[in-house]
C-alpha cells in the first residue's frame, strides 16, 4: 500500500504544479493583457483615486476636483467652465479627455515620470505622485474681454504675444461647461448627447479646429508676397487695375464693395480693401510665389500643436489664374483657422518672424517644483523685416483712416485688417466678419499683442463694414486688456 500512497502523493504534487503554473500564467505572462481589458475597472479606479492636478490661468486654478464618494472617486470641476472650455477641454470619467486636459494628462493625472524625484520609489511602493499643475499662457483679462465681446454669437477669438508666441486668449463661442461631462451616469450621458446634438455645436473649438475663408484679411499675406517677390516695389504707385477686374481667362468680373479702387495703389488697396487690386497682384506674384508665401505664414501645415493639434489652414497648390485671383483675396477654397490668422497678424507685428504659438507655459509638481518649461520657439520667417515694416504702416492706416476704425485705441499704435468672407453657393451663407490686428503701447518698440477675431453670424451687411462693425470692437477690447495688463 505504501507504493500507492506515494503515487497519490505524486498525483497531488502534479495538481499543485498545475495550479502554480496556471497562476504564474495569469499573474505574470497574461497580466498585462488582463490589465488592459476595457472591462477591467482597475486602471480607472486608480486614475481617479486622487485629485487631479489643476490648470492655472494667471497663477490661479481654473479647475478643481470633487470627492464624489463613488468608485471613481475624484471628479473634475471647473470654476469658469464655458470661458476656458476651448483651452481646458474636458476631463470626463465617461468620455475621456480633450485639449489641455488631454495633452497634459500625464502630469495632471500624476503618471508623468518627471513628477517624482525618485521614480523608482513609486514603482516599488506602487503609489502614484500627486497630480501636477499646468500653468497656461492665458491672461484672464484678455480671455474675458474676448468671451464677453463675442457674447454667445458663433465665432472665435485668439490673442498672441508676437514676441514669444504665447497664446493670451483662446475663445470659441458659443461654449459649454465641461464640468457637465466630468462624472459618470445618466446625467453625464444626457449632457453629452445634448451638446453633440446642439446645432450651434458648442463643443466645437472654433479657434483651433474650424477653418473659415479668411476673406480680405488674407490680403496681408498677398501684400507680403508681392513685396517680398518684388512684384510691388512702391506701395504708393498706381497699379493700373480696372474696376471691376475681369478674372484672367474668364469673362467673370470681380467687383469691389466700395468705390475708389480703380487704378489704386497697394497702400490704398489695403486701406480700403480693394478686391480688384489685390486679386491682380496675387496673379502677378503667380501660383508658386503665393503658395510659398502662404506656407511661410503657416498655411498647409498639419503639424502645429499648441499642444493640442490645430486644423490645417489651406491654400490650394493647384489653381488656374482666375482661382488664384480669388484665393489672393481669401476666397475660393482658401481656409484658415482663427489661430492661423492671428499668426499672420503676429508675423507683421514681430518684423516678419513667426513664433510657434503655445498654450502651456510650464508644468509643476504638486508642491511647486518645476517639471517642464515651454520657452518661445521660432516657427520661421514669413517675410523680410522691411516688408513687415511696410505692412505695419499700411495696417495702421487701416485703423486710423481706413475700414477698421472701430479697432482704434487712444494712446496706442494699432494696426489691423478687416475682412468679410462670403461663403455658400452664390454667397448665400451668412458672411463671416473678420478682424486681425496688433497693438503697441505708445512708446513701446514692439507690438505686445496680435489678435484675430471672427464672427459667424455678423449682421448681413456685405463688405468690409461688417468686419469693422462686428469683429473690430471685440479685437479692440482684447488688445486694450492685453496692453493694460503690462
Amino acid at each position, binding site marked *: 500500500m505504501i507504493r500507492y500512497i506515494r503515487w497519490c502523493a505524486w498525483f497531488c504534487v502534479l495538481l499543485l504544479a498545475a495550479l502554480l503554473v496556471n497562476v504564474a500564467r495569469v*499573474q505574470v505572462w*497574461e497580466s498585462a493583457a488582463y490589465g488592459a481589458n476595457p472591462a477591467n475597472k482597475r486602471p480607472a479606479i486608480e486614475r481617479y483615486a486622487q485629485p487631479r492636478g489643476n490648470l492655472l490661468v494667471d497663477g490661479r486654478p481654473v479647475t478643481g476636483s470633487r470627492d464624489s464618494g463613488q468608485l471613481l472617486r475624484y471628479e473634475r470641476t471647473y470654476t469658469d467652465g464655458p470661458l476656458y472650455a476651448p483651452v481646458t477641454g474636458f476631463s470626463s470619467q465617461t468620455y475621456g479627455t480633450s485639449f489641455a486636459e488631454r495633452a497634459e494628462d500625464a502630469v495632471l493625472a500624476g503618471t508623468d515620470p518627471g513628477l517624482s524625484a525618485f521614480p523608482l520609489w513609486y514603482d516599488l511602493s*506602487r503609489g502614484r505622485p500627486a497630480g501636477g499643475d499646468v500653468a497656461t499662457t492665458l491672461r484672464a483679462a484678455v480671455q474675458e474681454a474676448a468671451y464677453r465681446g463675442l457674447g454667445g454669437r458663433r465665432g472665435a477669438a485668439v490673442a498672441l504675444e508676437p514676441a514669444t508666441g504665447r497664446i493670451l486668449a483662446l475663445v470659441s463661442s458659443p461654449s459649454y461647461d465641461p464640468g457637465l461631462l466630468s462624472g459618470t451616469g445618466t446625467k453625464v450621458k444626457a449632457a453629452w448627447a445634448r451638446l453633440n446634438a446642439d446645432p450651434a455645436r458648442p463643443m466645437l473649438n472654433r479657434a483651433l479646429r474650424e477653418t473659415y475663408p479668411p476673406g480680405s484679411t488674407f490680403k496681408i499675406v498677398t501684400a507680403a508676397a508681392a513685396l517680398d517677390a518684388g512684384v510691388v516695389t512702391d506701395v504708393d504707385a498706381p497699379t493700373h487695375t480696372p474696376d471691376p477686374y475681369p478674372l484672367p481667362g474668364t469673362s467673370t468680373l470681380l467687383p469691389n464693395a466700395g468705390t475708389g479702387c480703380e487704378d489704386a495703389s497697394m497702400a490704398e488697396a489695403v486701406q480700403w480693401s480693394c478686391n480688384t487690386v489685390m486679386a491682380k497682384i496675387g496673379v502677378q506674384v503667380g501660383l508658386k510665389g503665393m503658395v510659398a508665401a502662404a506656407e511661410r505664414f503657416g498655411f498647409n501645415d498639419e503639424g502645429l500643436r499648441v499642444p493640442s493639434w490645430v486644423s490645417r489652414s489651406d491654400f490650394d497648390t493647384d489653381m488656374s489664374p482666375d482661382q488664384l485671383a480669388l484665393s489672393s483675396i481669401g476666397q475660393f477654397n482658401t481656409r484658415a483657422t482663427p489661430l492661423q490668422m492671428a499668426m499672420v497678424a503676429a508675423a507683421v507685428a514681430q518684423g516678419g518672424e513667426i513664433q510657434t504659438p503655445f498654450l502651456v507655459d510650464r508644468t509643476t509638481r504638486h508642491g511647486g517644483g518645476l517639471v517642464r518649461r515651454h520657452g518661445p520657439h521660432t516657427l520661421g520667417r514669413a517675410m523680410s523685416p522691411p516688408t513687415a515694416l511696410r505692412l505695419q504702416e499700411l495696417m495702421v492706416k487701416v485703423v486710423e483712416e481706413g475700414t477698421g476704425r472701430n479697432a482704434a485705441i487712444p494712446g496706442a499704435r494699432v494696426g489691423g485688417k478687416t475682412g468679410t468672407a462670403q461663403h455658400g453657393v452664390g454667397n448665400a451663407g451668412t458672411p463671416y466678419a473678420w478682424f486681425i490686428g496688433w497693438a503697441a503701447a505708445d512708446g513701446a518698440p514692439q507690438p505686445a499683442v496680435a489678435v484675430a477675431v471672427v464672427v459667424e453670424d455678423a449682421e448681413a451687411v456685405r463688405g468690409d463694414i461688417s468686419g469693422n462693425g462686428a469683429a473690430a470692437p471685440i479685437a479692440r477690447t482684447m488688445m486694450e486688456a492685453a496692453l493694460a495688463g503690462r
Partner: protein
Amino acid sequence: MPPPALTAKVTEPEPAPPPWSDTRAPRRGGVGLMLLAGAVLISALGHAYVGLVGRVQISTPHYAAGLAVAALLAHLAVRLRAPYADPVLLPIAVLLNGLGLVLIERLDLATPGQAGAGDQLRWSGLGVGLFALVVVGLRDHRVLQRYAYLSVTAALALMLVPVFFPAVNGAHIWIRFAGLSFQPGEFAKILLAVFFASYLAANRTALALTGRRLFWRLRLLPGRVLGPILTIWLLSVGVLVLERDLGTSLLFFGLFVIMLFTATGRIGWIAVGLLLAALGAYAVGTLEPHVHSRVQDWMNPFASIARGEGPGQLAQSLFAFAAGGLLGAGLGHGHSFLIGFAAKSDFVLATAGEELGLVGLTALLLLYGLLVSRGFRAGLALRDPFGRLLATGLASIVALQVFVIAGGVTGLIPLTGMAMPFLAQGGSSVVTNWIIVALLVRLSDSARRGGTGGSG
C-alpha cells in the same frame, strides 16, 4: 490463504518502514510552539497592516489575543494527548486560518455593512474547540473503524437534508436554521472518508483479487464488488443533480477513486472511475443549465463582456489575479471587491492573489502542499490499513478542495462552488477542516509513537 500465484501479484512485499517510525520519534513540542508563535505573529501583523492601510480602527489586539489563546489551547491539547504528533500540522492550520481572517477583515473594509470577520472568528473558535475535543477525546483512531456504517448513514442523511431546504444562489447545499446556515455536505466529507477507509480496509483483498482478467493488469470487475462503486458514483451524480453542487460531487468521487486505488493498486479501478466521471461530467455539463453555464464561463470568461453585460465573476477574478502580478498590490491596496458576490468565500484566493502577488500566492499554495504532504507522511508511517487509508483520504480531501477551487478561480478548470480550506468565509468549512487537521494530528501521533500494531 489465497493461492500463491495471486499473492505474488498483488500483495507486494511492504518496504521496510522508515527507521524513525520504529523507534519512538522525538517529542517536538518546542518546535511546534515556536512555529505556532510565528503563525500567530504573522497573522497579527497582517491584521494590523490591514487596519493601517484602511485607516480604520480595527481591534488587532483582540484578534491577536483570540488567535493566540485558541492556538495555545490547541497546542496544549496536542501536547497533552498527542505528544508525538507532527509539529507542523497545527501551526499551518493556525496560519491559514489567521490569514483567512485577515483577508476577510480586509474585504469587510471594502464592503461596509456585510462584515464577515466576526462570524468567521467565532466559527474558527468553535473549530479549534472541536479540534481540541477530537484530539483529547479520540485516543486511538482505530476506534472509528467500528462506526463505518453509522458514518455512511450519517453522511447520506447530511447530504440529503439540504434538498428539502430552499436553494441559495442556485445550489441546494445550505440548511438555514435559527438564523444560522450550515453546509452539511462539508461534514459529510469526513464521515465518507471514515467509511471508505473502513470499507476498503476490510474488503481490499477481495476488490484487488477478484474478477476475470482482460489483458495486462486490467480485470473485469464482478458485479458483487462493482455495486458499491456504482452506488457512490450514482450518489455523486445525485448530489450534483439534486443539490446542483458540482464541487462536492467532484470531491466525493475523486476521494473515492483515490482511496480505492490506494487500497487495491488496481489501474482498472482508476480507468473505470475516470470513464464514469467523464461520462457523468459530460452528461451533467450538457444537460444541467447551472453547470452548463459554468463550463461556458470557463471556456470563454470574457463572453459576457463581448455581450456588453460587463465582466462576470470569473473575469473579475482573473482581473484580480492579473492585477497582483509578481509581488502584489500590497495588503489592502487591491480591488478584488469588484468580484462582488462570494468575494470572501469562493473567491477569497483572488484577494490573496491580487494583494500578495504570485509570491504570496505561491507561499500559500505551498503551505497547503506542506499540510497535504504531512498527511500522506502520516499515512506512510502508519501500519494499520485503516489508518493509512484514512490519512490518505483526509490529505486528499484537502488537496482536492484546494485544487478544485483554486483551479476554478484561476481559470484552470470550470469553476465550482467550494471553500478554500481555512481561508474562505464559511463556518461549516472552517469547522470541518479543523476536525480534519485534528484527525491528522491523531494519526501522525499514532504513526510516530510507533507500536500501533497492525499488519500492512
